[in-house]
């Protein structure tokens, strides 16, 4: 009986800790060891074995609360990490500030730096939380590529395959395919390593994806030859600077919110804003409806696993409210 209670205790603890498997196992083993030490100690002082085990669990407290406190410690970030996480936003804002969006070299260097940092941090296998924002920018490349496939063999894909009637720089084609390769490799590593224990971080990484995807699609639509790789898509440069600064603030706020439910709420609002912005850019020209649907679909796939539980709770609350209201009206 007590053994099953202990298994439940450890199970709840384990379920509520969303950290890398190695770290999580260490924490669970440490707490389990403490419970055993405590129970043995109480037994030596004359307490019955079963009661000693129960008392040890009681004195350790609610496992969900303990897990939350430990989780908060391991996912809290300092100013240095926040600073590192917003560097890619400033790099892209810098392209706009210094009017370098039409320079293939500047854009390629910026993307290579972002992709390189993502690759380096993920190669080691224990990525820091700040690297997730870099990852978001890296993931935009395969997302854009995927979207081009979804939209069919249009001008965009033809350009990148080098078969378009518009002459495209060979170095740009080589860079693009190389970048997509690195980004796909990183994405596979992310899904393998993080998705299993915390989809919230993967969803957080996806925030820049709709904005960047919409930007590149419209830019490419306006200039199919990719002569200026990142045209400003019909928006003034100041707007783009504001967009990147807003994303930097969003990233910093997400990291500084220690509590998980605050992060989930923040992520929902940020995703809605990012999607609205992406759609507003797409409406500037006549980008097809599938582009909008595909962007929304990508965001839904990334957000759903992280938001499944809060959504289920919200639906349950709504159901209870409706049930109570119906009951009261019926009376």
């Amino acid at each position, binding site marked *: 009986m007590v053994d099953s209670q202990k298994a439940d205790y450890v199970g709840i603890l384990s379920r509520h800790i969303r950290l890398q498997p190695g770290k999580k196992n260490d*924490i669970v083993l440490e707490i389990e*060891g*403490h419970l055993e030490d*405590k129970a043995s*100690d109480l037994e030596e002082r004359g307490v019955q074995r079963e009661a000693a085990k129960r008392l040890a669990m009681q004195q*350790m407290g609610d496992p969900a609360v*303990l897990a939350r406190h430990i989780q908060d*410690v391991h996912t809290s970030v300092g100013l240095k990490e926040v600073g590192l996480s917003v560097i890619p936003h400033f790099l892209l804002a810098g392209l706009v500030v210094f009017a370098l969006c039409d320079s293939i070299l500047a854009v390629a260097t910026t993307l290579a730096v972002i992709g390189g940092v993502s690759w380096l941090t993920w190669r080691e296998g224990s990525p820091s939380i700040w690297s997730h924002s870099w990852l978001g920018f890296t993931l935009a490349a395969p997302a854009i590529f995927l979207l081009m496939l979804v939209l069919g063999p249009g001008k965009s894909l033809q350009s990148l395959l080098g078969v378009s009637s518009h002459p495209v720089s060979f170095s740009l084609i080589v860079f693009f395919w190389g970048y997509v390769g690195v980004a796909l490799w990183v994405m596979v590593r992310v899904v393998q390593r993080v998705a299993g224990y915390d989809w919230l971080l993967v969803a957080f990484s996806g925030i820049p994806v709709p904005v960047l995807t919409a930007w590149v699609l419209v830019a490419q639509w306006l200039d199919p030859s990719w002569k200026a790789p990142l045209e400003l898509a019909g928006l003034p440069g100041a707007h783009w600077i504001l967009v990147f600064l807003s994303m930097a603030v969003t990233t910093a706020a997400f990291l500084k919110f220690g509590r998980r439910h605050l992060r989930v709420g923040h992520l929902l609002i940020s995703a809605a804003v990012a999607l609205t912005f992406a759609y507003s850019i797409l409406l500037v020209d006549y980008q097809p409806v599938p582009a909008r649907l595909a962007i929304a679909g990508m965001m839904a796939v990334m957000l759903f696993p992280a938001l499944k539980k809060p959504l289920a709770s919200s639906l349950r609350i709504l159901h209870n409210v409706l049930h109570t209201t119906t009951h009261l009206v019926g009376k």
Partner: protein
Amino acid sequence: MSQQEMLKGNTETLLLSLLLLEPMYGYQIVKEINSRSSGYFDFKEGTLYPALHRMEREGLIEGRWQNTPGGMRRRYYYITLKGRFVLSDRQAEWQRFSRAMNSVIARSSVQPEG
């Protein structure tokens, strides 16, 4: 201020002071605090591990898994060089604080009414 509030503000100092004597594992720390304070400090066990892990992330202590002669694996915490510096500052601050408190408290005493 309650005993729990005072303890909360000084948890790190207490833990660093203990680990300066020798590396210890979680339950050993709880027992030592209890025994050295003659049972005065009722250390909530659920608060110990978040505190230890926070200190480890701050680089004040380092946890290492070790096998005990009895065959159990335990995570022992060691104080780091940074931890020693922080403890030295905290101890000096505590000395100043307690001297100042004592000098004020010692000159006034409340007579029980009735």
